[in-house]
């Protein structure tokens, strides 16, 4: 198995005429947890959404350049297949309100009409909820709708839902910014465990979070990838002044 999971080479993205991601080149290895940070409007979320081809769903959004999952160009593959392989967890927990917890976890299969034997689905549900550290809390209410869950639990349900598809990469778009501190801690704990089986890319506004959970950090500024380095290195001795200014709080 190759080591480089996601690699971008001179990748660009636009919203109409607005050039939001400029010539980004980055290489992300397997089982790494990479934090992507930068001030608002720096293109980090846009870049993230290009990886699983959610970017193009916005009218007028375009992208150009090389973006690979292993050796395959993401933009040449079937977008549906890309999203099977690259999962996403959003800022606001968004479990499907009309489905039970059980059905939420296997939603990727159910909604796609991928039929599987019940035993297999049960196994997937238990495995995913366990990996998301939610199994014990919901195992007796699997067939209830998830509306009674707390914010943190709902987000872990969304993580379980993404994991159930057995992706290679999981993308996180500011996954804890809508959560209280305790829920945030439980989700951050998960990152350490998930790293062993998946590659994680986490966009975050919270520098301390990046420092806590990631192996490497990418700093974006006004659409460009300014610096990409080991997290420890980045936060103690950043190489670029812009990174330095961001970290010390000159702007945010």
């Amino acid at each position: 198995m190759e080591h480089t999971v996601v690699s971008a080479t001179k990748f660009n993205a636009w919203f109409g005429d607005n050039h939001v991601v400029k010539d980004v080149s980055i290489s992300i290895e397997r089982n790494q947890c990479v934090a992507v940070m930068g001030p608002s409007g720096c293109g980090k979320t846009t870049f993230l959404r290009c990886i699983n081809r959610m970017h193009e769903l916005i009218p007028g959004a375009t992208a150009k350049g090389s973006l690979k999952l292993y050796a395959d160009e993401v933009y040449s593959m079937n977008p549906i297949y890309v999203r099977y392989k690259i999962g996403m967890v959003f800022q606001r927990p968004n479990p499907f309100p009309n489905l039970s917890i059980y059905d939420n976890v296997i939603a990727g299969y159910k909604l796609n009409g991928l039929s599987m034997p019940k035993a297999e689905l049960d196994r997937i549900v238990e495995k995913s909820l366990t990996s998301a550290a939610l199994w014990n809390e919901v195992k007796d209410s699997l067939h209830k709708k998830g509306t009674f869950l707390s914010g943190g639990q709902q987000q872990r349900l969304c993580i379980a839902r993404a994991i159930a598809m057995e992706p290679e990469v999981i993308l996180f778009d500011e996954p804890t910014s809508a959560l209280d501190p305790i829920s945030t801690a439980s989700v951050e704990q998960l990152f350490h465990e998930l790293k062993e089986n998946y590659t994680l890319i986490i966009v975050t506004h919270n520098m301390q979070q990046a420092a806590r959970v990631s192996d490497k950090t990418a700093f974006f500024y006004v659409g460009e990838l300014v610096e990409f380095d080991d997290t420890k290195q980045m936060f103690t001795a950043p190489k670029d002044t812009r990174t330095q200014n961001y970290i010390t709080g000159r702007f945010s």
Partner: protein
Amino acid sequence: MDARIKIRNTKSILFKSLIIFLAFIITLPLIIVLLYIIKMGVVQVNWGFLVHAPTPEGVAGGGIANALIGSLIMVGMSAIVAIPVGLSAGIYLSENPGTRLAYYSGLCVDILQGVPSIVVGIVIYFWIVKPFGFSAISGSIALAIMMLPIVVRSTEQTLLLLPASLKEAALSLGVPYHRVMLKVIVPCGFAGILSGIILSIARIIGETAPLLFTALGNVYISTKVTGPMDSLPHLIYIDAKSSYQDQIDQAWGASFILLMFVLILNITTKLITRKWNIQL
């Protein structure tokens, strides 16, 4: 100073009384009409009334089965046509708000909502009755055209109120667009869409004008959709103009039945919106 303020306050109180009086007094005509219809109509209704066809003028007995069955059949057929079309158009309008088609389509939905029902009847007469003859099908299509604006707008508005994160979550799992809409978005908006559908049915079940020159009317019980068929409002209209007392009595009975249908449908809608809208 004090006197002037007193006058202004009195004016305010008088105004409020006037407003309350006028606002509540309009419930009076409605209550009078409803009670009268119920009083005159409920005595007419028995099992025979519901299952027999009308008897010739002057002959006692008979019922409104022809109109009852006719209304049910035609409303059913209208719904079968109008629901898919209206749902699809509503989805399109909510999903593609900026496009030219959305603009013109939305404009035409507003236009259709304002077209007098008799004009719809005339148009369908020329499109379908002239080439194919009077039929329940032509009546249903006229009614379907009247249902469409309500179904389209309520679908569109319901879907626009759903959070965008719902669609995103489904798309990110690799679910293709059509499944996202049909298996996630529409089911989540079910309450709003359903109440729109029921409201539109309640509207057309009482419509007479579009049926005057399309489904025509039929004194016999008929289920043949390619031929003329009677309907409750049409029966009431014809009987109202009659000089025979038993036909007028029949009209009271039919009015009662029609009124009950409309009331039940409206109350159902209210219950649905109250019960299911809390969930989202």
